[in-house]
């Protein structure tokens, strides 16, 4: 991945990607948590998909997380230059999100510890390995 951006890029309201924000110097995932069942999401819908509750409150998650799985995409997709590394990350106490990985072009081993670290040049959420 060519460059990591550490200040929040401009973001369109309709941007469907997980939204990161900087709080007290840390990069966190924004979203919501159900006030009744505790279900966390990277979005903030009017009802909980698990229990139906209306009491959904904004929440932040992270910055740490654990890799569920990872891959390196090596074929071109519109507007992007391959290869780039991707991972599904279970953000601590939070939801599972897809993120780009800042590091060498190799898939992370599932179970690896990562930390939310900023944005790609395209505005994607980015993680990097935090453990050994």
């Amino acid at each position, binding site marked *: 991945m060519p460059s990591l951006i550490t200040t929040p890029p401009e973001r369109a309201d309709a941007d469907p990607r997980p939204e990161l924000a900087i709080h007290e110097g840390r990069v966190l995932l924004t979203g919501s948590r159900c006030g009744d069942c505790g279900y966390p999401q990277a979005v903030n819908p009017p009802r909980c998909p*698990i229990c139906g509750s209306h009491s959904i409150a904004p929440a932040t998650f992270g910055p740490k997380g654990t890799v569920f*799985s990872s891959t*390196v*995409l090596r074929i071109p*997709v519109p507007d*992007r230059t391959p290869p*780039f590394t991707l991972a*599904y990350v279970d953000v601590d106490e939070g939801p599972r999100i897809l993120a780009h990985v800042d590091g060498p072009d190799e898939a992370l081993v599932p179970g690896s510890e990562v930390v939310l670290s900023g944005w790609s040049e395209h505005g994607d959420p980015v993680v990097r390995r935090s453990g050994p």
Partner: protein
Amino acid sequence: MTGAGTAIWGVGTSAFGKQTSLGGPRLAWQATVEALDDAGLQASDIDAVYAGTVFGDPGTVTRCLQQIGIVEVPVITIENACASGTSAFHEARESVEMGRYERVLAFGIETMTAHFDGAISPIASDPDGAQGYAMPSIYGMSATRYKYEFGVTDEQMAEVAVKNRRHAMGNPRAQHHKTVTVEQVLGSRMVADPITLFQCCSIADAAAAAVVGPLGGSRDPSGEVAIRSSALRSGRLWDHTTDKVWGWDIVSDTAARAYEEAGVSVGDIDVFEVHDAFTIGEIITTEALGLCELGEGGRLVESGHTSLGGLQPVNPSGGLLSRGHPLGATGLAQIAEIVWQLRDMAADRQVPGARLGAVETMGGGTAGIDGNACVVTVLEQVG
């Protein structure tokens, strides 16, 4: 709801391949006329059409079917990602089962080379797609997880491609007619680690069709294939609470429903056509269908159980890895293959004595859910 039952009266397909110059209507005519002839029907006998297409332009289905005389009937087009064709089949069967229509055309078409040079572009409005998450990377994720969690090997994944390409040598309508070795599969270029090019289905242009009607109602009921069951559903939420790879539960849940409705267990089924868009997909699917335990899918393909000549062949047609994957047409091509198998018409790729067959198609591309749609249907020889 269940009356005397429903059956497939006839099936047809075009050839599968990159055939941009043919265009949609000619592909559709080949598939539909073959299915009508097979069913002993005229176009004017068709009461309704359920069709599956994903990338087709607005009006694709009526544009394709009008010149062969399928007009003045309800035409309903369904988009359910890779399962669009089988979703159309499911609804066609349901409509006959409920007595809404009698002779229904289930139809699927895709002219992918008109839209893509290579892989399908990621969906920009999707949380994952907007990050450049192309389809091969979804399966790359599953393969990475399977290597880590179950010790599935690259060779076992490659074996799926080797097997299905070998099967396709007996299928004149497949896109690929060349066997490959494990070494060739693993030596082809890396697409989405650890998935290599020969482990990915190609894009294709094709159409496929089936005529569905009441069981025993066609001119030659001995050629009918009974639809014992069909199940269609979207996935559960796929989130931080699951350790299953994407797509496992939806296939397992849908298959359980289809087996229950048919009153069969997986061991009763002689032949399968399943969604092998990528090699790891077939490994996951055979587990989720119950052909083996969770985590044993790599060893299952290695054992030969799912090869032609094995106890329960999977993808005797060569599957998506050999046909290519024209999304709307794929499901109905799978249906056609099982119909030919159950009628003992599959020639060099025939599973001897097959009486019960199953089709599974699973479509994705939506973040956060364990599949947009899955269809599993159980078919039985009548005669």
